[in-house]
């Protein structure tokens, strides 16, 4: 059944689903990060989302979306203090602020979620769009969601457009040269490879779209 909005219970489900996603993609992300990095991404993301999903379940929907997202951020910051772990934590902490007082997020709310998520990560990581990072998919996600919401799209349509945009943007990271993190040391060797952090970003939005569509 397709969801029209995401409420606290849906977010708990979503984190459960993200947890499964990263458990499945663990080895793939280890290998991907291993090409021009330190192979930890699969480990940190699976640890981070396992811990976050557990923390959210323990907390329960009654505390509301904002509190759940704050818990997710704090849990991830503690369990996965890698680059992506801390950026992801920052993303959820910022998203938590825009969810303050909201019972559920519709397309506009989810667009605000991802804008805050993107801005937090941009500030924390100081990367620019085009630097071959996670930001290269977060930016089109936020932009697409805002355009879709402004045009009155349903949550599910908005998210599937955003996921598509993210996947295209991920593909586009292949032609970029890494400027940040461990990959930067590999310079030209990073060209042709999709960015590992951007891959995580594309996964997150695709899975959110799927959860909303009830897939």
């Amino acid at each position, binding site marked *: 059944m397709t969801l029209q909005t995401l409420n606290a219970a849906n977010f708990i489900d979503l984190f459960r689903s993200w947890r499964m996603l990263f458990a499945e993609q663990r080895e793939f992300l280890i290998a991907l990060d291993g090409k021009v990095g*330190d192979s930890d991404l699969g480990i940190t993301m699976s640890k981070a989302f396992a811990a976050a999903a557990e923390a959210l379940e323990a907390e329960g929907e009654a505390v509301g979306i904002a509190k759940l997202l704050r818990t997710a951020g704090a849990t991830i910051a503690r369990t996965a203090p890698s680059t992506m772990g801390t950026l992801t934590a920052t993303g959820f902490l910022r998203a938590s602020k825009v969810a303050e007082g909201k019972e559920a997020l519709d397309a506009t709310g989810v667009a605000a979620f991802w804008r805050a998520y993107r801005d937090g990560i941009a500030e924390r990581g100081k990367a620019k769009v085009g630097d071959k990072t996670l930001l290269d998919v977060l930016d089109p996600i936020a932009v697409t969601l805002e355009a879709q919401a402004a045009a009155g799209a349903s949550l599910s349509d908005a998210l599937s457009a955003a996921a598509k945009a993210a996947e295209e943007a991920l593909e586009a990271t292949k032609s970029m040269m890494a400027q940040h993190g461990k990959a930067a040391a590999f310079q030209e060797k990073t060209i042709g490879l999709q960015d590992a952090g951007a891959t995580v970003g594309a996964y997150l939005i695709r899975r959110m779209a799927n959860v909303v569509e009830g897939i």
Partner: protein
Amino acid sequence: MKKFLNDPVSFVDEMLEGIYKAHPAVTYTAGDLRCLVTAKINPGKVGIATGGGSGHLPTFLGFVGDGMLDGAAVGGVFQSPSAEQMYQVTKHIDQGAGVLYIYGNYTGDIINFDMAAELADLDGIAVRQVVGNDDVASSVAGEEHKRRGVAGIFFIYKTAGAAAAEGLSLDEVTRLADKARLRTRTMGVALSSCVVPEIGHATFSIGTDEMEIGMGIHGEPGISRKKLAPADAVVDEMMDRIFAETDYKQGDTVAVLMNGLGGTPLEELYILFRRVSLRLEELGVTVKHVWIGEFATSMEMAGASISILHLDEELDRLVAAPANTPFFKHIAE
């Protein structure tokens, strides 16, 4: 993987338990083994914190002690500690004079220290940051801000630690630490890979007759991989790169850190240092201070690095000052 360990997952915490048992001069705060702090807080002194991944002993935590650092947040092997851990260390070591963070230029560490600084700021603790970027091989001149921090961070610790011990202000300690940072250059070379316990196999592979000039202390790619050359030729290649971007003049003085990456015997470090010293002599540069041994390692990696700090009068004074930490003792003359 051939290591003395019980479980890769408990590697860091069991190492820390060993450290606390051996060295009562350090302890931990916030009930977290990974928030290591000096047992002897000096009221009114600027606090100095560091942090970073494990696997580099004695870097980072080994330099917490008199005349050096006050605390270190300890991460997993080659993993940043969390912002929360850095923040807890910061709170514990602040004695009203503020805290200076000194750590290496790695994205994971930077974003966590930034986050910790924000948290400390909310508590009204003044925080400054000096981010070591001494590794010449990790980016070209002009792009120094992209360079990794490696063994040369030792000189920043030594300088800042002595300055804080003298009772200088946070701004002054920061200025001196930053000066040491700007005047330090390091070049490294690796002969074999390390093995991260939780990964269990070599981080990279390298031929039995090969070396990699400029490799990072986590196995990051260097400048060139080639056949292992005689020791003097290896040093020459490294020194030439350091000389290319420094302006050492006849009569200048330097401090040298001849560092082993873990698997290289001390004997070989002295053979390398012999040549380092000859190359500096040729320029009329005097080696005023020298430390040879393991200072920033990469687990069992075979290899070495040369760090040089271009001294001036105040840096000389601070580098020469005494220090007494579990892993580093310096008795002033």
